[in-house]
């Protein structure tokens, strides 16, 4: 059982299903392969971040830009630059809104919400939200220049 801390409140994370893992790991592998040797930054899955105060969150995937020092054996301080959450049917709007708000408050710039059931990704930035589906490209020229995958590729069977 994994836990998060939200302003001192202990939150247990429900076990995730195979579909969640398939989608998460497909994106993780794509990001890792792209980032290898490029010096743009690093990516982890299920890494806890001490966002602020008594709040610790565990994004499904976290990307941190190069130049930030992350200690290998300590809980990272602050937010990743990009956080990815693969949505499960049990996630509620407010739960996710609170999570996004925590990430942004701690300095995160972008949150991707991935919906395996609908094969869509909603990119949440500080200026708004856009949807990517089908052949539309998932990119972030500012945070991860050059990275580009079709939204549909996340949902292809392994």
């Amino acid at each position, binding site marked *: 059982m994994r836990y998060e801390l939200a302003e001192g409140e202990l939150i247990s994370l429900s076990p995730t299903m195979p579909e969640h893992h398939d989608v998460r790991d497909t994106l993780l592998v794509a990001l890792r392969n792209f980032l290898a040797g490029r010096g743009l930054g690093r990516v982890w899955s299920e890494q806890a971040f001490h966002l602020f105060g008594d709040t610790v969150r565990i994004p499904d995937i976290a990307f941190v830009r190069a130049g930030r020092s992350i200690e290998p054996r300590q809980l990272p301080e602050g937010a990743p630059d990009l956080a990815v959450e693969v*949505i499960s049917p049990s*996630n*509620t*709007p*407010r739960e*996710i*809104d*609170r999570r*996004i*708000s925590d990430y*942004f*408050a701690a300095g995160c710039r972008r949150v991707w*919400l991935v*919906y395996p*059931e*609908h094969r*869509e990704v*909603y990119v*949440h930035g*500080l*200026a*708004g*939200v*856009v*949807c990517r589906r089908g052949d539309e490209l998932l990119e972030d020229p500012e945070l991860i220049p050059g990275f580009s995958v079709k939204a549909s590729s996340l949902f292809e069977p392994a």
Partner: protein
Amino acid sequence: MATKTLLTVEEFLRLPEPLDFAYELVEGELITVSPGMFRHNQVRDRLLRLLAAFVEEHRLGTVVSEQSFHLFGNTVRVPDVAFVRSGRTLPPDKLPEGAPDLAIEVISPTNTLREMDRRVSDFFGAGCKRVWLVYPEHREIYIRGAAIEVCRRGDDLLEDPELLPGFSVKVSSLFGDVS
């Protein structure tokens, strides 16, 4: 297997107006929006009154509730409360084109995450600047589209210096006495 029937906006506008629910059109697909329950409506109406009074007094624009907006293509959405800045003329007897500048959605327990994400992304896609997501059950408001802290609760002030200069209310006052 049933195929989805897609409607154009023109066909959508010709549908008989339902009495106790609303229709939205999402990329041609007809969606029914259930009427909110008491708590939803109470908070919505309170926001409507507060914003309308302020906006009218300062001549900032127009505030409406349950108004349909033709966002783009075959997508028509009905935000709970909408603010349109002055300078934009809304045709008195036609569906407004484009998004309001601020859209407010009061969340009901039946709203799903993806439904709200899609709705919010539709608003931004059509040029909306800000979306407020209001959770009466948790007495919180989440602001989307501004580069500021996004959750407001308790004694936090609900403000928007850019869209609503001078407007300021404590979040808790919006939910006070809400059942």
